[in-house]
């Protein structure tokens, strides 16, 4: 391990408590999944931050490209009617 080989990059997700969604908290380097899991425990959960861990190889995550931003996200900028709050609820409609 004299060279700079630090293993592969993993992304870490934590669940605060049972039933809650897993949230991304950071990343780490490790050679295999057992090592990644233990490193995640040691790096991210020593102060009761959660009781569930997911780890995912960073290379397995399909990510949108920054260059796709215009095509992907800009078209929704001026379409406020896509938000439910755009619509007035007629009087007398119940259960909404």
């Amino acid at each position: 391990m004299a060279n700079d080989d630090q293993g592969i990059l993993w992304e870490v997700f934590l669940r605060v408590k049972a039933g809650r969604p897993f949230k991304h908290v950071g990343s780490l380097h490790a050679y295999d999944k057992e090592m990644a899991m233990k490193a995640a425990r040691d790096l991210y959960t020593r102060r009761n931050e959660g009781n569930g861990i997911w780890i995912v190889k960073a290379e397995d995550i399909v990510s949108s490209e920054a260059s796709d931003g215009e095509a992907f996200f800009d078209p929704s900028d001026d379409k406020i009617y896509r938000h439910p709050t755009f619509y007035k609820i007629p009087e007398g409609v119940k259960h909404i």
Partner: protein
Amino acid sequence: MNNKLLDFCLRLGDTSLILSHRIGEYCSKAPLLEEDLAITNVGLDLLGQAESFLKYAAEIKGNTTADELTFKRKEKEFRCLHLVQTPNTDFAFILSRQFFMDCFHKLLFENLISSKDETISGISKKAIKEVNYHLKRSSEWMTRLGLGTEKSNEKLQVAVDELWMYTDELFIDNETDIFAKENHIGPLSSSLKKDWSELVTPVLENASIKVPENNLFSLKYGKNGFHTEYLGYILAEMQHLPLLYPDAIW
């Protein structure tokens, strides 16, 4: 004051204390950042265990504190095992030492949970959770290094061979063991040997590491107050500040 009970607690406390100090020396020197934090966490767990046992030892002795026991005792008054005094030669040595000790601590604390002494039982209940994690971590590393590359296997074999001679002390009984056994405080050290071999051997074999022959290394042991040449240097560093400034506080 119960001298034998004190001796028993000092052995537990000092062994964790000195291993924790050795790990502390390694802080910032691990081959990768994640490992540096992980091994230091193990050291902190051990320091917590040491503090609990030394606090209890101080209570038994009376008129002293865990800090005083740590920083003001002389070498011959320490009861730590030789294995934890061995130097941080390289990563393979640090991991092998840890693995041997984790296996030993697992068996010891599992047994001490049912100690008739409530304080020892209480500390052990808390410690066993930490130790189970330490053992998972160190046994995975044994496998990883053993099956890694030719070089990592070779380095691990050297570490295992060199450290093996310090493992016989783990299972040597002295008067304190006999006292502990008779009073249902703890097991005879010798009674843990078979289970220890059964924990250690499969991990070594799966990692393509040859299990060394069992040779009796020494008749003088840390648990009797006779130490390796290393302990004096460890204590010199550890006790330096409190000896220079006896009333120093944070």
